């Protein structure tokens, strides 16, 4: 493991060094590729620019809204499908192929229906993020021991109380795992939507920098976004690892 860490570090250092070298030696045009040092400079410059910060804030808040809506819809949908086995059997093939669909192609349509702005972006994000929560909820409900349901009946809980007081808490770790996964989906969908058609957000800022030939700024924004996404993903991975070990 320690050896692997060194190899990782070495690979990263060599890659960054090679990048720096071929850029500084002028082997590639600065409109194509810039060295890491220039990317960092651009990232710092972007962080001091209020407009760019506003774009960042918009993207992050959109992702947060998407995850919140997707979590509610996913849990409700999962519980509903689990409650009616026949629906579930019918829906199963569609659930299994859901993430194979380029849901992205729906974005233009959502723009047509919902108009330009954040609403179609949020809708695309929810489409992407919701299913991972629903699938996790279904898997969690499947694992609940039969004795819990018996306990609910012995304690004379109603249907709603059984769901809210026993079933959902019992599969909370699974649901949390699904929500953590939905964050990545939300990021992908939101940024891709911004990138293609929106006029705000960090995705748009990157596309704009590309189209206006501000290559250095483009790489700086990517670096900033990359650091941000990686940090959030690592955080989520930790939360999930904590939940699964806590549940076991």
């Amino acid at each position, binding site marked *: 493991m320690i050896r692997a860490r060194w190899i990782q570090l070495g690979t990263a250092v060599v890659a960054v060094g090679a990048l720096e070298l071929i850029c500084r030696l002028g082997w590639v045009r600065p409109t194509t590729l810039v060295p890491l040092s220039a990317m960092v400079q651009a990232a710092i410059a972007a962080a001091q620019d209020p407009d760019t910060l506003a774009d960042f804030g918009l993207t992050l808040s959109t992702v947060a809204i998407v995850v919140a809506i997707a979590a509610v819809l996913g849990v409700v949908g999962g519980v509903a499908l689990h409650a009616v086995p026949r629906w579930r059997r019918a829906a199963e093939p569609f659930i299994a192929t859901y993430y194979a669909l380029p849901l992205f192609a729906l974005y*233009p349509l959502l723009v047509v229906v919902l108009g330009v702005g954040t609403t179609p972006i949020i809708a695309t994000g929810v489409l992407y993020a919701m299913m991972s929560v629903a699938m996790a909820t279904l898997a969690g409900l499947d694992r609940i021991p039969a004795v819990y349901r018996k306990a609910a009946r012995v304690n004379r809980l109603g249907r709603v109380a059984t769901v809210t007081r026993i079933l959902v808490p019992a599969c909370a770790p699974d649901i949390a795992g699904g929500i953590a996964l939905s964050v990545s989906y939300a990021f992908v969908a939101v940024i891709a939507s911004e990138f293609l058609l929106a006029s705000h957000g960090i995705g748009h800022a990157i596309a704009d920098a590309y189209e206006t030939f501000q290559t250095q700024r483009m790489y700086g924004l990517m670096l900033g976004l990359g650091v941000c996404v990686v940090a959030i993903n690592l955080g989520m991975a930790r939360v999930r690892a904590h939940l699964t070990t806590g549940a076991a």
Partner: protein
Amino acid sequence: MKRAQTWLDGAAVIVAILLAWQFLSLIVGAHVLPPPRATAGRLVTLVGEPRFLADLASTAEAYVIALAIGMAGGLVLGVAFGGWRLIGDSFEPFMHLLVATPKVTLYPVILLLFGLGDSAKIAFGVLHALPPVAIMTANAIRTVRPVHRKTALTLRLSPTAYATRLLVPAVLPDILGAFRVCFAQALLGVLVGEMFASTRGLGHLLMASIGVDDNPTILAIVAIVFVFAGGGSAALLAAASRRKS
């Protein structure tokens, strides 16, 4: 009996989706969201247009190439990651990083490196398809039974023979699963690539139709892509479950 029931339920879901579509179309207006029948009509005329056929062929070509490269490259990397622990520990985290990154943001880099054209969208398809195949293959190989690994060692297999004659056959069912993901991801990558910067292909046609508010064409293309992706994925899923039983 049970089988017929399943088919019937599946058909019911499709009918429900079509009804919901029709209903939504009534609410927002047929000029904004054309109903299923109008879309089907547009689809028929679209298939007769040479321009559309050229776009379809362009997308199909890029897709097949991206699929092949993504699958082959993913398999090779996956076998290396899963078969040799040091390689996996050292380089697999980079793959995870790539999977988690919103890859659209990397598209400008690909355009800068590959130029505007087919190779850029193929590269973008590969960027989507290859990492999950590599990770799924590596994970499958890690679950190969230890006694099979030990056996291979005692039979003094060369590293190549170890990979091709033990690891790959042992994980064949999982590779089928990886192919399903590759199938979907390569399509997504190529389409998004065409949507952002391309002069031909279905993705480009989609964006061009948005530009001129040609809603029936948008829906018709979305319908084609969904039926292809959903149908292909379902067929692969069925093939995988048949193998398992």
